[in-house]
């Protein structure tokens, strides 16, 4: 996590330097956009982390391993896809939840299916952004075309895990 913070800070410095060389020096625009994204998180992130901690306390570790663990197979991938599609919130809220699931013993293929479903199906994002901007028919068409993707990604990830585990 320290390494992660260092990466992010280096990247931020790089972007700020790039902006400094641009004619308009768009620091102010960047700060305003960033603040607009941060504001809703100030309350939401602590609440989401708290909710996740409580839910994990209620959910026994054996259940996570049994339903989403490495050996849960395609049923686990399917369950993870459903869960991922329903998981609300942006990356700042979702990745900490996934981190908790990793700690509790969820499998890699299952987590990749979950993250894929969260990113392509994300029902909250569909309702909040996609329906209002694209309209119902285009949204429906995109969702239908994307529905199999989490399972494809989970299956591919499972195959890759087995492939690398076999040491080839």
């Amino acid at each position, binding site marked *: 996590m320290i390494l992660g913070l260092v990466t992010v800070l280096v990247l931020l410095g790089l972007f700020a330097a790039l902006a400094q060389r641009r004619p308009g020096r768009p620091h102010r625009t960047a700060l305003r956009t960033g603040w607009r994204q941060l504001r809703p998180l100030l309350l939401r992130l602590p609440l989401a982390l708290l909710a996740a901690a409580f839910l994990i306390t209620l959910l026994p570790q054996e259940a996570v391993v049994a339903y989403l663990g490495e050996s849960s197979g395609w049923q686990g991938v399917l369950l993870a896809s459903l869960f991922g599609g329903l998981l609300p919130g942006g990356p700042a809220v979702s*990745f900490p939840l996934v981190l908790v699931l990793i700690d509790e013993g969820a499998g890699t293929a299952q987590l990749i299916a979950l993250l894929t479903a969260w990113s*392509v199906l994300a029902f909250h994002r569909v309702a909040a952004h996609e329906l209002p901007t694209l309209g119902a028919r285009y949204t429906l068409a995109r969702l239908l075309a994307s529905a199999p993707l989490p399972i494809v990604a989970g299956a591919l990830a499972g195959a890759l895990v087995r492939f690398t585990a076999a040491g080839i």
Partner: protein
Amino acid sequence: MTLFFLALASAAGGAVYALQGPEAVAAAAGRAGGLLLRVAPIVVAAVLISGYAQALMPRETVQRWLGTGSGLRGLSLATAAGALTPGGPFAAFPLVVALLGAGAAFEVCVAFITAWSVLGLNRVIVYEIPFLGVHFVALRLLASLPLPFIAALLARPVGRWLRLGP
């Protein structure tokens, strides 16, 4: 959304209190607080990077890249553009509307939005690697690389079936 998490946290917290007592509530809250302290600096830096990325790479640039090209070259270009497009849904969906309006094919837009959501480099670098580690992220990206193309292939018959424009 905030209300949803408030309700969820209260309900789950109440259930923990009823089933396992106040010590379990305190332990879980402590865990959440610890994670918050580790995550908060990354999140603050992340939204600033996202702000800079959007300021440096405006919507018009991406739009000019995509144009109306379809076929494998168009899909590859759309996938690359989607992976490089910074910013959240506020930025991405208006871009798709603009592309459709400019005459881009529906499957190209599907490839773009799928790549933006599963391959988005902004999110990978800023959130995913710090939280989940390089190994996991590399595996996920490798497994996700074909997805924009698969979605675009499926989008063509679905679009025809729903009688979306040409």
